[in-house]
C-alpha cells in the first residue's frame, strides 16, 4: 500500500497556481515595502506573474495533461482543466490591462489591487482542476473573498462600497447554502471525490435518497448564484453597476465563466446518475434567466446596469449547454463562454474609456456621436453588441447557434425557441446603444473617450478574437470538443 501522503513531485501539477498565488503575495508585500511604488511597476509585475503562471501551465501540461489524478485524487489536469486555466489566465491578464487607468486615478495602493486580482485568479485556476468538493469549495471561496474586496475597492466611494457590501452579504449566504448542500451530499454518498460520487450515486437506490436530493439542490443553488442565473441573480445589477468597471468586467467574464466550468464538472462528472432531474431544474432556471434578464434590460438607462441584466440572460443561454445532455451541448458551452469572455472584456473596456469619476458617462446619452469622435471604439463596440445579440460574423453567433442546436437535438426545442425569441428582444436594447453612437450628435456634456493605448490594445485583441471565433470557428470548436471530451 502506498503512503497516504502525496508524493512531493505531484505538487508540480499545481505549479501554475503556486506561481500565481505566491507572486500575488509577493506583490502585496512589495507594494507596502517600496516607498510610493509606481503604478506601472505594479501592473507590470502583475502581468509578469500571469506570464510566469502561463509558462508553468505550458510546462506541466505535458506531464500531467492526460487526466491523471494527483494529490489524493483531489486535483486533475485534463484538457478540460487546461482549457479553462488558459482562459482564466487570459481573463486575469485582460483585467490587469483594463484596470490600469482606474488604479492610476484612484488614491488607493496599486499593489493591493493587483494582488487581489492575482489571488482571485489563483482561486479560479484551482476551480478548473478541483476533483474533490473540498478543493472546489475552498478555491471558490478564495475567488469569492478576493472579489468581495475588489468590488468594494473604492472604499471611499459610496457606490463601490455598497457594491462590495451587497456582494459580500449575498455571496456569503450562497457559500453557506453551497456548503450545507455539500455536507448533505457527503452524508448521503460518503465521499467528496467526483468519480467516487458518480459511482455511489449510480448504486441502486442511492438516487432516491432524500438526503441526496436536498444536497444537490442546495449545491446547485449555491453555484447558480455564482453564475448569476435567475432567480439567484438579485445581487448582479447592483454589484455590476457599483463595482469599479474593470472589476465588473472580471466578475462578468472570468468569475462567471469559471463558475460554469465548476458547475459543469460537478454535475456532469459527479452526478450523472441524476442527470434527468438536474437537467429539468436547469431548464427552468435557463428559461427564467433568458426571459428575466432580457426583459429587465429593456428599460435600463445606465449602460453598466443594462450589461448586468444582459449577463443574467447570457447565463441562461449558457445553461442550455448543460440542459442538453449530449456531446454538442457540452462543448457548445465551452465555445460560447470562450467567446463571451472576450466580448465582455471588450464591451467593458469601451465603457471604461467613456466613464468619468463620480460615475458620469454611463448612460446611453453619453455614447452620442461616438462613431464620429472615435470611429474605432464605436466600430468595436458595434461588433461586441452584435456578438452579444448573436449575429454573424461573430463568435457570439456561432456559440448561440451550437447551443440552440444542442437543445433542439436533445428534445428541448421550446427552450431553443425561447432563446431565439429573447435574443430578438435583446436586439432592441443593444441597438438602442448603436443608434446613439451612429445616429445622434454629441453635445457639450458628452464625455470624450480617453486616450489610453493599453486599453485600446485590449479592445483590439478582444475584437480580433470575437471576429476570429465567428469567421473561422473550426480550430476553436476542435479545441472545445477536445476539452469537453476529456471529462468522462
Amino acid at each position, binding site marked *: 500500500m502506498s503512503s497516504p*501522503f502525496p508524493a512531493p513531485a505531484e505538487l508540480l501539477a499545481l505549479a501554475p497556481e503556486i506561481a500565481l498565488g*505566491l507572486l500575488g*503575495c*509577493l506583490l*502585496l*508585500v512589495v507594494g*507596502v*515595502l517600496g516607498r510610493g511604488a509606481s503604478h506601472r511597476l505594479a501592473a507590470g509585475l502583475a502581468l509578469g506573474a500571469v506570464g510566469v503562471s502561463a509558462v508553468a501551465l505550458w510546462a506541466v501540461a505535458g506531464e500531467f495533461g492526460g487526466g491523471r489524478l494527483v494529490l489524493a485524487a483531489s486535483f486533475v489536469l485534463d484538457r478540460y482543466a487546461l482549457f479553462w486555466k488558459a482562459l482564466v489566465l487570459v481573463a486575469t491578464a485582460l483585467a490587469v490591462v483594463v484596470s490600469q487607468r482606474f488604479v492610476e486615478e484612484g488614491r488607493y495602493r496599486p499593489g493591493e489591487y493587483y494582488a487581489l486580482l492575482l489571488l482571485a485568479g489563483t482561486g479560479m485556476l484551482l476551480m478548473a482542476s478541483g476533483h474533490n468538493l473540498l478543493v472546489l469549495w475552498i478555491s471558490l471561496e478564495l475567488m469569492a473573498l478576493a472579489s468581495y474586496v475588489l468590488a468594494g475597492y473604492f472604499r471611499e466611494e459610496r457606490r463601490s462600497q455598497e457594491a462590495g457590501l451587497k456582494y459580500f452579504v449575498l455571496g456569503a449566504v450562497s457559500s453557506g447554502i453551497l456548503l450545507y448542500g455539500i455536507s448533505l451530499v457527503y452524508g448521503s454518498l460518503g465521499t467528496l471525490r467526483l468519480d467516487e460520487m458518480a459511482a455511489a450515486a449510480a448504486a441502486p437506490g442511492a438516487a432516491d435518497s432524500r438526503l441526496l436530493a436536498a444536497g444537490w439542490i442546495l449545491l446547485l443553488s449555491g453555484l447558480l448564484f455564482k453564475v448569476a442565473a435567475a432567480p439567484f441573480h438579485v445581487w448582479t445589477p447592483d454589484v455590476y453597476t457599483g463595482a469599479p468597471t474593470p472589476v465588473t468586467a472580471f466578475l462578468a467574464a472570468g468569475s462567471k465563466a469559471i463558475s460554469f466550468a465548476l458547475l459543469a464538472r460537478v454535475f456532469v462528472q459527479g452526478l450523472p446518475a441524476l442527470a434527468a432531474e438536474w437537467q429539468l431544474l436547469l431548464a427552468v432556471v435557463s428559461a427564467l434567466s433568458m426571459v428575466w434578464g432580457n426583459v429587465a434590460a429593456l428599460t435600463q438607462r445606465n449602460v453598466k446596469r443594462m450589461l448586468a441584466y444582459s449577463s443574467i440572460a447570457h447565463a441562461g443561454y449558457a445553461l442550455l449547454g448543460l440542459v442538453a445532455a449530449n456531446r454538442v451541448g457540452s462543448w457548445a458551452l465551452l465555445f460560447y463562454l470562450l467567446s463571451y469572455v472576450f466580448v465582455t472584456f471588450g464591451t467593458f473596456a469601451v465603457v471604461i474609456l467613456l466613464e468619468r469619476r463620480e460615475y458620469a458617462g454611463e448612460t446611453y446619452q453619453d455614447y452620442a456621436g461616438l462613431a464620429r469622435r472615435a470611429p474605432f471604439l464605436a466600430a468595436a463596440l458595434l461588433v461586441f453588441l452584435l456578438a452579444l445579440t448573436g449575429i454573424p460574423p461573430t463568435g457570439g453567433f456561432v456559440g448561440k447557434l451550437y447551443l440552440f442546436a444542442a437543445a433542439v437535438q436533445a428534445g428541448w426545442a421550446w427552450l431553443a425557441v425561447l432563446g431565439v425569441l429573447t435574443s430578438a428582444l435583446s436586439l432592441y436594447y443593444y441597438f438602442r446603444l448603436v443608434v446613439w453612437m451612429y445616429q445622434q450628435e454629441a453635445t457639450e456634456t458628452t464625455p470624450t473617450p480617453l486616450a489610453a493605448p493599453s486599453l485600446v490594445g485590449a479592445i483590439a485583441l478582444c475584437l480580433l478574437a470575437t471576429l476570429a471565433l465567428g469567421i473561422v470557428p473550426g480550430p476553436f470548436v476542435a479545441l472545445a470538443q477536445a476539452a469537453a471530451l476529456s471529462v468522462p
Partner: protein
Amino acid sequence: MESYVPILVSALLTALIVLGLLLAARLMRHRDSPLTDREPYECGNEPESYAHDHRFSVRYYMIAVLFVIFDVETIFLFPWAVLLDKLALFGLIEMVVFLAILVAGYVFVWRRGALDWA
C-alpha cells in the same frame, strides 16, 4: 418515549427550583430598593458612567479582524504537529511555506499601518 422521562422530571425540578428561589427573593428583599442596587457593581466604587453611553472605538474591530485571522490559522498547526514524525521533512517544508505566507500577511498588515493605534 419512556427514555425521555428523566429529562422531563429534571426539567420540572429545575423550573420549580427557579420559581421557588425567585419567590423567596421577592418575599425577603427590601420593598423600597435604594438606587445603588440597580447600578453596575464596580468593586464597590460608584460607576462613573454607563457602558451604554459609550461607543467602542472602531479601532477595536481592526484588532478583532487581525486576531481572528491569525488565531484561527493555528488550527492547521495542531494536526501537523501530531503527525510531524510521519510527515517528515516534506511536512516541515510545507509548514514553513504556510507560515511564510502568514508572515507575508503580517508584514503587509504591519507596514500598511493597521497595527498603529493612533
